[in-house]
């Protein structure tokens, strides 16, 4: 039997972000964005930094997530992300500043490898936040 709704649950180590009944979810999977409708085959995927969106009562909601993973079962999607913010919680100024700082690091020539990587991740997170905010409220 195929259920017609999905239980979406998003948790981070720090809190439970949301737990809702929704119509569909789009997950930023490790190998690309993927859409999940009710009755999707069981799936376990890593998450990349990006936007996670879901549709509830015809309205789309957007969140910014960073690394973690998502488990899809027939009628349930659990997302475990290291960080996750709803569009309305995102502070765009902060994201912009963080992006700028990270860009400065990337432009320097003498940065050690791990610092370079960290700056890259920072940029990705900042971009995901900025986009989630503009899509979520647009």
């Amino acid at each position: 039997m195929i259920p017609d709704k999905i239980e979406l649950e998003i948790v981070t180590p720090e809190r439970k972000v949301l737990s809702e009944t929704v119509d569909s979810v789009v997950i930023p999977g490790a190998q690309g964005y993927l859409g999940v409708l009710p009755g999707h085959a069981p799936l376990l995927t890593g998450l990349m930094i990006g936007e996670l969106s879901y549709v509830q009562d015809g309205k789309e909601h957007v969140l910014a997530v960073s690394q973690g993973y998502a488990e899809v079962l027939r009628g349930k999607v659990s997302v475990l992300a290291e960080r996750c913010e709803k569009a309305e919680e995102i502070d765009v100024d902060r994201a912009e500043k963080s992006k700028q700082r990270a860009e400065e690091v990337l432009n320097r020539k003498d940065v050690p490898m791990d610092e370079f990587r960290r700056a890259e991740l920072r940029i990705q997170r900042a971009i995901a936040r900025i986009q989630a905010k503009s899509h979520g409220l647009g």
Partner: protein
Amino acid sequence: MSKTRDIKRRIRSVSNTMQLTKAMKMVSAAKMRRATDNIVAARPFAHNMRAVLRSLAARANAEVHPLLQITGNENVELLVVTGDKGLCGSFNTNINKTAHNFIKAEQRKGERVFDLHAVGKRGVDYFRRRNFTIHRAWIDVLRQVEYATAKEIARDMMDRYVTGELDAIYLVYNEFKSAISQHPVVERLLPIEPIVPAEDETAEDYIYEPGPEVLLDTLLRRHVEVQVYTALLESVAAEHGARMTAMDSASRNAGDLIDRLTLHMNRVRQAAITTEIIEVVSGAQALG
């Protein structure tokens, strides 16, 4: 007369202290409540992750993962979690002693090299005074425990474990039992205890993106991070609990002391009056 004044001064100073300890008790109570909320909030994540890890272990070949390999027992590291501040009864002493005894007991078993990863100023000071090598000291991270901190600590340890620099890592922290009881525990962090694969997994056939081995690797790493994170949260809650009890008994002691001093003061005053009366009476008698 000067004696009663001295006692009065004492009483005043004790009651000032009592106000202070009372206020600290209230503050600790509030902080403890927030800390326990954090522990509760962290539970779903840890719970869900363990479940996924077990179902994954049934599929991927978990035994060959480097974080599960037992390589030896020469180089051992302890992650000791204490508090940054004192005034919390035996909280810090207990942890430091437990860690120290653990090291002594292990060293008696054979030649082992220990180094430390200390979170909290109290632990850092204790072991520095005793000339232990502290690989890294984390001070002032407990006021607001963040996942990123736990991640950084865990990363550092895992990297050195995988390269073979360390053979085992233990975690020493105060477990939060209730507001009035907390007790020190020693847990092995690495190598990870073998994960019992879930049994009823044949029913659902998962799609894995990317493959199960890659997922297992990231999940195991995250598992270690979460363990460190929970330990930090537990320790913070336990610290506030310990401080609350310590301050409560301090306030009670101050109250008792004030009572005793007041009684003493009254007696001294009474004695002074009596002496004076006797003096007056005997003076009058001598004249009469």
